[in-house]
């Protein structure tokens, strides 16, 4: 791989990975804040209304810090298509520019308007209008997610386009582009994962306050809301979302499936590997622990179905980093399983009214906080490494998409700049969120916006 290409890929990978730590909480939390405001609006119990309004007010503070970090790290994403991937943009801009512009026009204006009202407007707006603002922010952030997924889905599974004689890729049907079947499942999978992240964060903070013996009534609200929403989301995440997303890969990117599963040889009744290290020299999985025939069943619903291994495909369409792809996928699935188990246990204890006082269970919830983030990141790495060596699957190779005149030196300069800046940003973010947590929901109680 030439150095400029490596730097361009690293910079995009790093900036998008860092960026997406924030929107996943934005989108998950937007739904949960909307739920809090809805409960506050609908209840006739004054104490309950105050508690849910107070809870929303506290989470809006965290949301605001998270949101602005997501915004400032998001702007470079759109720009990098042009700065670092000029040949790709020139060829495909007529197609993927559409969803990116749609996102700006239909979601960011909505989101930013109502966020201003949500943060600054509680004293100026009626309860109903403030509730409406939370709906606006929720809708804006979720619409934004859809357009971005449409963009990525088109790169994973291009539809609604046609190749012009001059090498430009032209839009043929906006409808097909927006209703790409890949996008529908990827969106479902991704948004539910965002709700999982939001739920775990809310529940974990509640658990932290309970363990520390602070803000007890708010803490119980956080735990109850987080565990309830998180349990529902965890199940939907696996069935139907994850399962159907897997089927999209099976049908459209069989070579990616083989690499994800570490399946080097085509077999009937393929096993699924739980643990093992892919050895790309000997073309085998070292130290495998497998469930026989499970992969055949999961992908084709038949125990004896044939699953194509990497050997069924020419080497030049193999994903170019098979071990990382394999581990990303296995980390996502492994952490997902752990998160499901923790949510199930917490829900069971919650239903029996024992969760709030069960310290080991609260510790478990608290310690889970990084895992939804890691699982989501690993999931995205699976999708994007799985797409390699293609930039647009089957249409344009990654190496053909970079900017022709941006040298590796200039690329490295900006990559290092982003690394340094984002490190500072990450530290500041954690510091400020910690500051708000220390401050707690109690002191915000009376309408101090």
């Amino acid at each position, binding site marked *: 791989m030439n150095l400029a290409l490596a730097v361009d890929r690293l910079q995009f990978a790093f900036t998008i990975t860092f960026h997406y730590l924030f929107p996943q909480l934005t989108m998950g939390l937007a739904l949960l804040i909307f739920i809090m405001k809805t409960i506050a609006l609908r209840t006739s119990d004054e104490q309950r209304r105050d508690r849910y309004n107070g809870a929303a007010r506290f989470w809006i503070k965290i949301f*605001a810090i998270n949101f*602005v*970090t997501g*915004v*400032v790290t998001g*702007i*470079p994403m*759109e*720009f990098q*298509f*042009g*700065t*670092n991937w*000029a040949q790709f*943009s*020139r060829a*495909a*801009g*007529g197609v*993927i*520019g*559409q969803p*990116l*512009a*749609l*996102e*700006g*026009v*239909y979601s*960011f*204006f*909505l989101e*930013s*308007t109502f*966020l*201003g*009202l949500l*943060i*600054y*407007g509680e004293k*100026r*707006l009626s309860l109903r209008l403030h509730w409406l603002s939370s709906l606006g922010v929720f809708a804006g952030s979720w619409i934004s997610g859809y357009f971005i997924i449409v963009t990525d889905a088109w790169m994973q599974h291009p539809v609604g386009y046609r190749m*012009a004689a001059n090498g430009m890729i*032209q*839009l*043929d049907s*906006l409808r097909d582009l927006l209703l790409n079947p890949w996008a529908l499942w990827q969106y479902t999978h991704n948004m539910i994962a965002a709700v999982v992240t939001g739920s775990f964060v809310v529940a974990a903070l509640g658990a932290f306050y309970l363990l520390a013996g602070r803000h007890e009534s708010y803490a119980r609200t956080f735990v109850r809301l987080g565990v309830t929403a998180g349990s529902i989301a965890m199940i939907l995440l696996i069935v139907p979302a994850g399962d159907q997303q897997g089927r999209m890969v099976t049908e459209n990117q069989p070579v990616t499936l083989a690499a994800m599963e570490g399946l080097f040889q085509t077999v009937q009744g393929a096993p699924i590997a739980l643990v093992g290290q892919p050895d790309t020299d000997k073309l085998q999985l070292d130290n495998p622990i497998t469930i026989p025939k499970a992969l055949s069943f999961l992908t084709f619903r038949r125990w004896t179905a044939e699953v194509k291994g990497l050997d069924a495909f020419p080497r030049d369409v193999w994903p170019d980093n098979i071990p990382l792809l394999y581990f990303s996928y296995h980390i996502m699935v492994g952490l997902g399983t752990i998160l499901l188990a923790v949510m199930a246990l917490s829900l069971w204890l919650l239903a029996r009214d024992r969760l709030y006082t069960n310290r080991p269970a609260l510790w478990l919830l608290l310690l889970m906080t990084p895992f939804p983030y890691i699982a989501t990141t690993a999931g995205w790495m699976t999708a994007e490494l799985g797409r390699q060596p293609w930039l647009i699957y089957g249409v344009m190779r990654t190496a053909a998409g970079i*900017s*022709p*005149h*941006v*040298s590796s030196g*200039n690329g490295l300069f*900006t990559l290092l*700049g982003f690394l340094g*800046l984002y490190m500072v940003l990450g530290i*500041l973010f954690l510091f*400020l969120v910690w*500051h*708000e947590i220390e401050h707690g929901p109690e002191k915000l109680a009376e309408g101090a916006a």
Partner: protein
Amino acid sequence: METLWFCLVAIMIAGYVVLDGFDLGAGIVHLLVARSDAEKRIVLASIGPVWDGNEVWLLAGGGTMYFAFPALYASSFSGFYLPLTIVLWLLIVRGISIEFRNHIASPVWTPIWDTGFTWASLLLAVFYGAALGNVVRGVPLDASGYFFLPLWTDFRARSSAGILDWYTILTGVAALLTLTMHGALWVAMKSPEPIRERAASLARRVWWGVVAATVAITAASFAIQPHLSERFAEAPWGFVFPVITLTGLLGVFLCKAPRAELPAFLSSCAYLVGMLTSAAFGVYPLLLPASTDPALSLTIHNAAAESYGLRVGLAWFIPGMLLAVVYATFTYRRFSGKLHLE
């Protein structure tokens, strides 16, 4: 159809400059007009609910340019690689400065963000002005439609120049002066005394600089880019844009009374719109002139997406932007009126 999209992209850019322009300007004057912590909070509160929405115009405008003129997006963004990346960094510093400052009230914390807010705003104004200067001057496009410019070389405004040469530095300084005035007028309109008086008097003084800069960049632009005079000669109705510019500039001068803050600010908006539309009119039908060989220039014809995309784009773009204008109107009305010191 291409001409229509040229106009729409120009409107998006003008919308961005007018709107984000005043909050950039508020950043530039922040340390000059606000002394105490309470006063600084007023300046920040005057843009707090709206700055993010204003910045969306940049993203939406960028996206619009991306799908309507993909070749322009690819060529200009990769060619202006270094300054654009630095702009992104400045936008990051500025965004977090605005939002992070008021979370902690400490004399060790707030000055960091006041400084970041001011300097990032100031440098962004200079970069935006220089960017516009680069587009008017032209860039060394090669036969494949790409180029790459270093930040600077010998500072001569020729095809061997970098991003910064004497001409683009001039446009950068002009943008800085203009946005300083624009931001000061906004802050004057939104603030109580004594911030109002400081901002208004700053705007009055900077106005002379804006006049000088307008004269200088007009003369320099016509000298450097012969296409401009050809355009105004072949379509004299285009003089309406410079007339808007001058009317706006005169309006700012005339509306000095404390009660005339809104007309003064709107005059400043008209001035900005006039300057940008004059430049867009003068460059049309080029998008990015080539300083190497005029035949290599990117034009609305060779850089546009094909007609289906442009047609279907129109169907969602117009209603979407009307909706955006409704949101903006709602926000500005909700948060209208002067702020008060606590």
